[in-house]
Structure formats: structure tokens, C-alpha cells
């Protein structure tokens, strides 16, 4: 029982990280109906930025905030320069652009920071502070995820800019007619998603260690989380993230062993796509032919 509880809590901790990244994916999906395959690498790049700041002697939390800003700017710039030209292109072209972005970010990071695995600090103390079932970093990661969620909710629900962004995502034509600059709203959406992803990267780096390929598996779980929850539903994505985290940990610890953990994500993704493509909470779309 003790081991079980321990695994569930550990699952919730990684689940929070998956939830953040899944949330980033959903934000971009809502605005553009695209799934950003480079989301993980963008987060990884931002985490390296944080690492260099901390390595240069900056305290953790200022570096954290600066990285969030950096990730935001990175997201906006990428949307403006790289994604804009293929806005109305066929899906294949867009997917290829995402993959190109993934590859470029990955190799540029390897080039600048080398491929050596680095240790990334955790802002939370080493001794357990949330009881003996969960590490303090795990508990802290859950807390950070919840704070990010709350901030996003408040932003989208109660600010004029948030409202404008929702309008631009839901109905670009009408939004444009009432004077919202839809193109910039998309860019801001990308920026926010990148910032949320950056937070996920900084939370996961102390667990998986910092290297240019660290987000491969995490991104896969985030995809699974987003799909399980419904790819157009932010709350669903968060629920999916926690669910996938717990499921992965329990199955890995008690049923199939650690080696096949990634296969859980594969089965979940294909299973959800085939059985219920809209996920638990997504809108069911009916296509008229």
C-alpha cells in the first residue's frame, strides 16, 4: 500500500509536468488547429537558457522568471518568422516545418551547449517537506503546475487581452471585424504556450537531467495527455496529464516494467485516436461531406 501511494504521488508529480506541456499543445491547437511537434524542443531550449543563467551565478527564481520571458519571446518570434508563411499551407507542409524546427532547435542546442548530460538544480529543498511519500521536488512541481494553471485561467477569463485571444481562436473572421489583430493574437498564443512549455522544461530537467534529447519521451506523454483529455480542451489536457502520469508510473512499477513505459504512451495515443478521437472532454466534430 505504501509503495502504491508512493507511485501515485510520484505519478502526479510527473503528471503535472506532462499537464503543463499538454496545455501548451492545446493552446496552440485551439488557436491554429495544429499540433506543435517542436513544443518539447522549444521547452528544452528555454531550459538550457535557464541553466546558463543559473550557471552564471543568478539565483534560481529570477532566472526562472527571465526564462519564462525568454521562452515567450522565442515563441512569438518563431510564430512570426517561421510559422506565418505556412499558415494556410497543406498539413504535410506544416508538419514538415514543425519537424524542421524540432531538428534545428535540437542541433543548435547541441552545438552551443554540447551533448554532455548536465545536472539542473531544483528550487525545492532536498529533504522531503510534503511528508514521506513524495519528494519535495515532486510536490513543488505539482504546486508550480497548479499556479500556472490558475494564472492562465485568470488571464483568459478576466482580462480583455485574454478575451481577444479566445475570440481570435474561435472565430478569426468575426474577431477581425471587431478590430482584433488576429495575427498578433496567434503570435501571443504561441508565446504563452512556449512560456508554459518552458516552465514544464525547468520542472522536468532535475528529474530527467538536461540534455538536448530530454523532451522526446516527455512530449510523447504530453501528446497522450492532450489526446486523452480532448485536444481542444485545456482543463481536459490537465486532467489527461495527471492521469497519464499516474498510469505510466503504476503500470511501470507494478505491471509491465520500466522498459515499456513509452509503449503506454503509444497505446494510449493510438487507442484514443481510434476509439474516441475527441478524448474524454473534447468536442465531437461532425464533418459534413
Amino acid at each position, binding site marked *: 500500500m505504501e509503495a502504491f501511494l508512493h507511485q501515485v504521488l510520484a505519478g502526479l508529480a510527473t503528471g503535472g509536468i506532462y499537464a503543463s506541456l499538454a496545455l501548451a499543445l492545446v493552446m496552440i491547437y485551439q488557436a491554429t488547429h495544429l499540433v506543435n511537434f517542436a513544443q518539447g524542443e522549444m521547452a528544452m531550449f528555454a531550459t538550457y537558457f535557464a541553466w546558463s543563467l543559473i550557471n552564471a551565478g543568478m539565483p534560481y527564481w529570477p532566472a526562472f522568471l527571465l526564462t519564462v520571458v525568454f521562452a515567450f519571446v522565442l515563441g512569438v518570434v518563431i510564430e512570426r518568422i517561421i510559422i506565418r508563411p505556412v499558415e494556410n499551407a497543406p498539413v*504535410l507542409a506544416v*508538419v*514538415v516545418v514543425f519537424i*524542421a524546427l524540432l531538428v534545428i532547435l535540437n542541433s543548435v542546442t*547541441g552545438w552551443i551547449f554540447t551533448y554532455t548530460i548536465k545536472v539542473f538544480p531544483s528550487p525545492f529543498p532536498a529533504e522531503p517537506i510534503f511528508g514521506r511519500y513524495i519528494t519535495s521536488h515532486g510536490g513543488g512541481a505539482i504546486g508550480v503546475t497548479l499556479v500556472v494553471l490558475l494564472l492562465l485561467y485568470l488571464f483568459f477569463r478576466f482580462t480583455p487581452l485574454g478575451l481577444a485571444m479566445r475570440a481570435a481562436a474561435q472565430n478569426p473572421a468575426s474577431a477581425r471585424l471587431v478590430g482584433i489583430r488576429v495575427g498578433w493574437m496567434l503570435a501571443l498564443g504561441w508565446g504563452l504556450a512556449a512560456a508554459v512549455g518552458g516552465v514544464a522544461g525547468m520542472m522536468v530537467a532535475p528529474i530527467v537531467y538536461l540534455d538536448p534529447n530530454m523532451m522526446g519521451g516527455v512530449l*510523447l506523454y504530453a501528446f*497522450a495527455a492532450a489526446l486523452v483529455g480532448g485536444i481542444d480542451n485545456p482543463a481536459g489536457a490537465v486532467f489527461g496529464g495527471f492521469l497519464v502520469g499516474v498510469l505510466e508510473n503504476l503500470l511501470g512499477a507494478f505491471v509491465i516494467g520500466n*522498459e515499456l513505459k513509452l*509503449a503506454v504512451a503509444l497505446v494510449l495515443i493510438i487507442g484514443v485516436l481510434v476509439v474516441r*478521437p475527441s478524448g474524454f472532454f473534447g468536442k465531437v466534430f461532425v464533418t459534413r461531406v
Partner: protein
Amino acid sequence: MSRRQLILLALLLLAACALPFLVSNYRTFQFTLALVYAIALLGLNMLTGYNGQISLGHGAFYAIGAYTAAILMDQYGVPYWATLPAAAVVCLVAGFLFGLPALRLQGLYLALATFALGVSLPALLKYHHLEKWTGGVQGIVIDKPEPPFGLPINADQWLYFFVLAVTVLMFVLAWNLLRGRMGRAMVAIRDHHIAAEAMGIDAAMVKSLTFGVSAMYTGIAGALGAIAIQYVAPDSFNFFLSIVFLVGIVVGGLASISGAIYGALFIQFVPNIADEISRAAPWAIFGIFLLGFVYLMPMGVASAVRLALVLARAQGAK
């Protein structure tokens, strides 16, 4: 096919046959790998270029083909040439089965599902219950085929000719398939799903079959690749292999048979050159080429070559 094209092809084949006698053994080996890639790219191009189904996980089928060949040779002592049909059948079935659920997925979702396949396959290959066959993390080492019938060539050259023969066969088969009923049906489904069905094409069947045939091509390439490199290990089939294939078809040219060759030469030789700059350079260059081709030349090198030929002919006619 016009007479002129036939002569051109014959000359090309002649040049390909002369090649291993003109360059070093190491270069011969590299060209062998380029041919292997050409088969894999042809397979992916059928699916993505002709049929419009995006796959980000074709490295998985390459791996299945490679492991089929390696296990058959290592465990059961099957001769290397006999592993190709086996790899073909295994991958045809695997591809067809994966293609069945994939039918319900389009565009982005299919890309997601295949992405998951590509990312998670190395972990499956390392699975310790399969270690008896797959050799786990260490992989499998296999023997290099010797030239038969006492031919006066060395092993590298023989391997090159063997792969060349298979490549020519696979290209002729693909050419036949793609200009026939099946190929037309594939293109029709890509261009307009509903119109194709209204014309009596069984879209579900054609799409699954295309997935199967595409996987079969890639699997045969995987088996040949394993024989050429004499080694298979889970980490050589990571997600980036699938991206390499995607780079190959985008650079070579989507929906083009000759594009597979241009793409294969690109993915084989450009990293070699770029490697001298830095370990990260090949991937940076791949990424930049991907972006460049999508923005500037969406139909790849093949379309550029076609355009150059047309222009040259127009010049000549003046």
C-alpha cells in the same frame, strides 16, 4: 516511355555498374547505403507523396525489416538473400495492420500516431523479454556476405551489386504499380477523398494496402541495411531515422520516383560532409534544408531537374 528515356536509363545503369570499380571500397559501401535508403524513401514516398498519408514513424518499419533479417540469420542460419522476402512479408503485414486503425486518422492525427510509433519503438526493441531474439541493448552482429560463384570481386563490391539488383527490381515494380490502377487510385484518394470513393475506389482498402506496401519497401530496405552494416541495435533506429526519411522525400521530391534517388544521395552524403564541421551540423543543415524546400521548392529536387530538362529542350529547339 520514350526511346530517349530508355537510352538514358540504360546509360545510368551502366554507370551504376561501373561505379564500384572506379571508387574505393569505403565509397562503394556508402553508395550501397544510398541505394538502401532509396528503396526506403520510395516506400515512404508512396505513402506520403502519392497517397497523402503522413508518416513520422517509418524508421520503425525499417527497424522491423532489419531485425527480421538479423534474427533469421543469427538464430536460424538463413542465408542473407532469403531474409529479404521474409522481411518483406513481415513488414507488409505489420504495415497493413498499423494502416487499419490509421484509416480513421487523417493528416495531423496520423502524423501523431506514427510519431508515437517512431519514438517508442527503440524502447520496445530493448525489452528484456525479447532479449533472447533481439540481443537487447547490445543488438545483433551478423556476418558479411561473401561473393558467390567465385566471382573476382570483393565483398563490398558484391554487396553493392546485390543491393543494386534489388533496387532496380523494386523501382521497376514501383513504377508499374504507380502508373497502374492502384497508383491512380492512390493519387485520387490523396487529391479528393470523396470524389475517389464516388468513382468506385475502395478508399479504406487502398489506403491500408498502400500503408502495407510502403512498409514493405521500407522493411526490405531495413533488411538490406542490416546486411550491409552487419549490425543492428535499438538505438540506431531512433526517432531521428524517421526524420531522416522525411528529409529525404521532401528534398528529393514528393510524389516522384526519381526523387527517391536524389533524396537518398542527399541523406547519405550531406551528413558526411557536414560532420566535419561539428556533430550537430548535419541536423542543423537537415533542418534548414527542410525549411528551405517547403518555402521555396515544395516539390523537391526532382521537380527542379524536370524544369531544367524542359528549359534545356526549349533552348535546343530554338
